[in-house]
């Protein structure tokens, strides 16, 4: 065994590390991956016994026995002989970088002409060219020591998207990073985004299945760092196949006066767990976190957010909204930490849930942990139903029950979707969201 010291127990999820070994990796990466593998092997997948996983059980991922997708899938994609098609958002003209089963698919990507100094490449390419910013950036934010899913991703770190914006670079076209999954396997997509001082971009990170919508497991890690005054609009869309499993860690680091606007949409996988961690590490930085999730059928969706105010005069605003029907289940855990020196912090957090059926279930836990006194912090959480008066009004205007419910449900999340700023994306998301709501409405009627 190359990945781990001989004689240790090997977690089945790591079993495939042998298949490619760590051959071809630069020394530092081989070391990093080995440490990550050892760390995951020691801790294994999180279990509901851990407080952060109290409501989410990953044992389905284990029992499914996913094997690592490996390189051959990527080779198929590179060959271009694959049936995979990439259908971009209509009307959006992005710089796109597409990955199939975790490996860069040049045939499907459109890297276009990026502004001077901007790098939009696959991690594998960047590594082969020895680009130092990739080496410095990888694993710099997403530490794996106490997070076994990050460790698992890092152990398999081979490819993914790497984006670098030099000082004052403004990328007008949105950058679209798409991870497609074409077959039943485990993938560990990775994304690295570094924006230097005064840089600006819109980044769309989305997860979607190939045409035959198989069951698969995506365990993603994204690291985003924003230099002073940098601005990023980050739209993350989890619209996996309905049989798929999705776990993700998004790690954001903000320098002085930077502005991060994150949109986190999760509507697809049968089980999705997304950890979004934002560190406001220098004074004056500002973070907005917006989320929309839905859970119908037997879907389970879990959003954990952690906003870490370490320095003074930072602002964070967070709104997550969820629509739940049938036997859908949602978990929200929002933690805001204001450290002793983070005076003049302004933090607001909201979580609102709409329950459309008797079997739906929601567990929400907004947490505030505050160690500074000159702060303004508030949070709120609600769980409720559609307003019967509003439903009655719409019906009196001739709408059917299902339609009326769909209209109101859509209105419930529209304030978040409307803020995405990319009309074409907002529309397609609303489309992705609505069929389930409407079907649920019919069932109720």
């Amino acid at each position, binding site marked *: 065994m190359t990945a781990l010291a001989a004689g240790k127990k090997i977690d089945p999820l790591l079993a495939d590390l042998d298949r490619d070994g760590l051959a071809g990796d630069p020394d530092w990466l081989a070391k990093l991956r080995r440490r990550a593998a050892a760390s995951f092997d020691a801790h294994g997948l999180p279990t509901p016994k851990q*407080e952060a996983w109290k409501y989410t059980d990953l044992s389905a991922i284990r029992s499914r026995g996913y094997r690592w997708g490996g390189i051959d899938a990527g080779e198929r994609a590179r060959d271009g002989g694959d049936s995979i098609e990439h259908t971009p958002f209509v009307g959006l003209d992005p710089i796109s970088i597409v990955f199939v089963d975790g490996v860069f698919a040049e045939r499907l990507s459109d890297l276009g002409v990026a502004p001077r100094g901007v790098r939009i490449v696959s991690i594998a390419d960047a590594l082969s060219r020895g680009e130092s910013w990739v080496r410095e950036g990888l694993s710099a934010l997403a530490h794996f020591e106490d997070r076994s899913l990050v460790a698992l991703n890092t152990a398999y770190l081979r490819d993914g998207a790497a984006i670098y914006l030099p000082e004052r670079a403004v990328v007008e076209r949105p950058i679209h990073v798409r991870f497609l999954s074409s077959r039943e396997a485990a993938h560990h997509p990775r994304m690295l985004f570094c924006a230097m001082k005064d840089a600006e971009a819109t980044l769309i990170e989305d997860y979607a299945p190939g045409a035959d919508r198989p069951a698969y497991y995506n365990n993603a890690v994204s690291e985003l760092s924003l230099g002073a005054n940098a601005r990023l609009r980050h739209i993350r869309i989890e619209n996996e196949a309905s049989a798929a499993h999705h776990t993700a860690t998004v790690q954001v680091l903000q320098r002085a006066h930077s502005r991060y606007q994150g949109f986190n949409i999760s509507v697809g996988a049968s089980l999705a767990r997304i950890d979004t961690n934002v560190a406001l590490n220098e004074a004056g930085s500002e973070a907005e976190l917006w989320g929309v999730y839905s859970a119908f059928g037997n879907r389970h969706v879990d959003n954990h957010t952690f906003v870490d105010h370490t320095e003074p005069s930072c602002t964070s605003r967070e709104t997550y909204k969820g629509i739940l029907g049938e036997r859908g289940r949602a978990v929200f855990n929002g933690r805001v930490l204001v450290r*002793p020196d983070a*005076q003049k912090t302004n933090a607001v957090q909201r979580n609102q*849930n709409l*329950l*459309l*059926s*008797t079997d*739906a*279930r*929601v*567990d*929400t*836990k*907004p*947490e*505030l*942990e*505050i*160690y*500074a*006194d*000159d*702060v*303004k*912090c*508030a*949070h*709120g*959480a*609600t*769980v*409720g*139903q559609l307003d019967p008066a509003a439903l009655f009004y719409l019906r009196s205007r001739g709408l059917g029950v299902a339609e009326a419910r769909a209209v109101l449900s859509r209105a419930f999340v529209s304030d978040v979707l409307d803020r995405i700023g990319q009309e074409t994306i907002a529309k397609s998301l609303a489309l992705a969201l609505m069929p389930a709501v409407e079907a649920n409405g019919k069932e109720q009627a």
Partner: protein
Amino acid sequence: METPREPVAVDAALNEIVEQEYRFGFVSDIEADSAPPGLSEEIVRFISAKKEEPEWLLEWRLAAYRRWIRMVEPKWAHVHYPPIDFQEISYYSAPKSKEDAPKSLDEVDPELLETFEKLGIPLSERAALAGVAVDAVFDSVSVATTFKDKLSDLGIVFCSFSEAVRNHPDLVRKYLGTVVPPGDNFYSTLNSAVFSDGSFAYIPEGVQCPMELSTYFRINAAKTGQFERTLLVADKGARVSYLEGCTAPMRDENQLHAAVVELIALEDADIKYSTVQNWYPGDKEGKGGIYNFVTKRGACRGARSKISWTQVETGSAITWKYPGCLLIGDESVGEFYSVAMTNNKQQADTGTKMIHIGKNTRSTILSKGISAGEGQNAYRGLVRIQKGAEGARNYSQCDSLLLGDRCGAHTFPYLEVRNESSTVEHEASTSKIGEDQLFYCQSRGLSMEDAVSMIVNGFCKEVLRELPMEFAVEAQKLLGVSLEGAVG
């Protein structure tokens, strides 16, 4: 806008108050009849024998003890303290005079009475003037119960726990451990094994208790844990308001207090349980003070029953308690009103659990946390709407006020909803006293001190007004003493 301030003068005035010593720090020198430190089956048997308990209760205690030794101390709370050596604690301490139990107030050990006097609870006076029946718990054994006759005319049983075991074994046996089962959690299990005494009250069907029932707890002898057990049963249509006040003298070692309170409300019954807790919080360096690890839970068993918890927590080095309500009966109501104040190195992790089981059950949570000095104050609450709890409604509000730049305020609410027809709302905010508010008050001629005191009182008012009159006054004074010193 920069507010004009006079930091020097203010600081001087503040320091004076900050340096106020704990007013109730004295030790009554009464010969105690204690068990040697340590916990074993023998000690459990010793306690049970001392109290001349029936066999079933001894068995109950032993079963709890056997469970406890296999349990692990919980670590999830947002508090930090050195590990407790449970073999260092003496589990039984009773004033010697217990042998010839007092028949009336006159027979009570005068020094005991004096102790209460120093605490500002003149037993006789209070009994006469305020019409309060006080079941005073001095360390572990109840020494005097007043107004008993008046209550017994109405069929109300209000006595010490051990008395209830002797005189009303059926009632005790029927309800003991039905709300907080022996194996519920680490500290309640410990309590079940070694509980010394406490209060018992039973309000028969349709009776409205004519006066506030009240108990004063006081931890006195050094190195003794206090493990009281309170059981309160309100039969159909009964109504009762129960007050609990706590103080402890100054001790250098941390003392453990692990009480269990069980409330049972049958159909249409109404229980109001108010606590003012002012145990010794430790000194400015965090030395000494009480560890207050309490399990309090009420069950609204019958339809339309109501249980209301009100607590003002200003004392203890560590407070760790979550008075909860099991809303089993349809249309039952649970309420939780709390003011928790931490100063210096005090830590509080407190909140409530509202479990909605019956249809159309309602609960309200109102929690006000005040942190000063290096105090850490956490609200931790659970609202669970079970599947069958149709039309359940919850509203929670948790506000924190920060006074000082080294304190902390934390909120950990758990909302678990399994029913679509229910509505759950939670709101929380954290801030310090606004400079503009202070400026306004000062511009109207209030001193800095008075302004802060007024704003803080306003902050807590929604909770304080839930307290019975006498308690509200005391609570306000307590807050004043603990708080004003902390403003900087």
